[in-house]
């Protein structure tokens, strides 16, 4: 069983709501990424989502798009991101790490070498934003054969038959996009979310992580009522962007504190058995 599947199994058994922060690898500076990962875990993150910088991050809002630009200004590549995960793994072997990125850097490396390198580095799952399930007939099985979970996005507009297509290709969990839009958008409607997730769960047996539009403890708790995991990206990235990038201590402390507040709120709202 994959590290991701095992994590969700334990959480379901105990009633714990999983907390998944997103940072872009290399943002604000490449040397901060691994320390940030460790501090996010110390603050209560159960799984980490690491953005792979890309020149054209179409599905990301301005906050994360800017993070990609900061990372690319330092030349952070897919290989560099894998090296960061490998370094993280020297001190942490339990927290799943998923990569979130775009197809072209993987395309250039080749799906087979990428899957092998990612598995070897200690990556657990791969979400390729611009690779729809209809085009993933080669990559998803290749990832799974290497022991990686292919993660797919489901949108509010995704009809049941496409949820089914995703359910057949995906493993680990599915990533439900809580609203129409890009990362970092506002206007989360938790009632509509509950109805949509009920449909998703009738078609797809995998655990559901919900992201896009969750920005603090209150929105995390409201979302977690219907989700197995809540994913927080833009709120964290924009918070870190307010800090002087030369101040490593302040960055990691802020990230850990931000996680801890949300962790505490989730645990209060959903006490573990």
């Amino acid at each position: 069983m994959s590290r991701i599947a095992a994590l969700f199994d334990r959480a379901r058994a105990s009633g714990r709501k999983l907390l998944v922060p997103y940072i872009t690898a290399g943002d604000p500076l490449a040397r901060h990424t691994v320390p940030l990962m460790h501090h996010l875990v110390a603050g209560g993150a159960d799984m980490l989502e690491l953005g792979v910088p890309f020149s054209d991050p179409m599905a990301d809002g301005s906050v994360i798009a800017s993070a990609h630009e900061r990372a690319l200004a330092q030349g952070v590549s897919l290989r560099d991101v894998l090296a960061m995960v490998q370094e993280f793994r020297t001190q942490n072997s339990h927290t799943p790490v998923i990569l979130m990125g775009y197809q072209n850097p993987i395309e250039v490396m080749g799906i087979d070498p990428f899957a092998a390198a990612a598995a070897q580095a200690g990556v657990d799952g791969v979400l390729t934003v611009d690779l729809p399930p209809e085009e993933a007939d080669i990559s998803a099985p290749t990832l799974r054969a290497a022991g990686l979970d292919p993660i797919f996005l489901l949108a509010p507009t995704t009809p049941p038959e496409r949820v089914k297509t995703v359910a057949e290709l995906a493993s680990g969990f599915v990533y439900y996009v809580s609203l129409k839009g890009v990362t970092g958008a506002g206007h989360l409607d938790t009632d509509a979310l509950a109805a949509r997730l009920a449909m998703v769960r009738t078609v797809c047996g995998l655990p559901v992580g919900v992201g896009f539009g969750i920005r603090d403890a209150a929105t995390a708790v409201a979302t977690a009522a219907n989700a197995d995991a809540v994913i927080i990206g833009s709120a964290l990235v924009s918070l870190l962007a307010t800090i002087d990038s030369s101040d490593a201590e302040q960055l990691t402390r802020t990230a850990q504190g931000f996680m801890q507040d949300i962790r505490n709120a989730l645990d209060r709202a959903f006490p573990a058995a």
Partner: protein
Amino acid sequence: MTAVSELEAAYTKYRQDPDFVKEFEQDLRDYVGRPSAMYRCARMSEEYGAEIWFKREDLNHTGAHKINNAIGQALLAKRLGKTRIIAETGAGQHGVATATVAARLGLECVIYMGAEDVVRQMPNVYRMKLLGATVVPVESGTRTLKDALNEAMRDWVTNVDNTFYIIGTAAGMHPYPQMVRDFQSVIGREARAQLLEKTGRLPDAVVACVGGGSNAIGIFHAFLNDASVALYGVEAGGDGVETGRHAAPLTAGRPGVLHGNRTYLMEDQNGQIIGTHSVSAGLDYPGVGPEHSWLKDLGRVSYDAITDAEAMSAFHDVIRLEGIIPALESSHAVAYAKKLAPQLGRDKILLVNLSGRGDKDINTVAKLEGIAL
């Protein structure tokens, strides 16, 4: 993805719907002014050394071939009940065409344009505003066409319920490359019939400029099965392909994935898309329509690049010899025709797609030549 699936279903239905086809053809005739003229360039033929003919897309309403596709997609938007139109634009020709059809149909219109292009193409920015569109300068990335496309995509996924995204070139995700080709293929159908009527022959060669590739695929499509007709796609060579400062993915790029299609791209060794350079904003795109990539791999179309300097020289040739101010984009095709003509010979017919007029470019040209307007 659901939105493009719906679009594909709608397009599949309406492309065969007699009412839709009739309305499209009627608009092309009465609003755009089609068929566009087929013109023999007497003095240019003499100077260049082959029979040079222009397909005069520059005479269309709004000044370029872009309007053909904008009309087709806007008619689809209307049938889908969308009330808001968005588009990306580089040189501003597609933005102007989109703003035009939106005004005509009474639809809200938002145009995304790279901040750098907003500066380069001021007259077109003002035209779009006059037509009632909101022009949003895009500050992300390289601040050119690809970033405008990214931003339009972000808008579309956010406002998908009421918004139709009119992509201007034969790129992007399916069904856009096919749809844009179909709407633009009127160029080649007309040109083929007109040349047969006027000369009794097919052309020996057809030349068109390629950015995303909509005018080129539009004129090539009718000739693909005519084995005797050589087809040439001309990319923007910028300062020269060897300098790296160009926009010629078919000539000097590698296959990759961008904007929902697999095609030749300008990218670095890590798969990051790299900045492009061309004197012509409309060719300044690091990818190209996937059908061109396919035609290159098949060997049916030859692709080559023309530098900024060669295009500028051809721009002046067209004005001096024929009294036509061509778009800088189209000037790339003319510059290639100049190279090709002596190889073909005097009795051979060389058809150039004059895809747009150059009124929009006079500020750029004046600035390059050190003239204050």
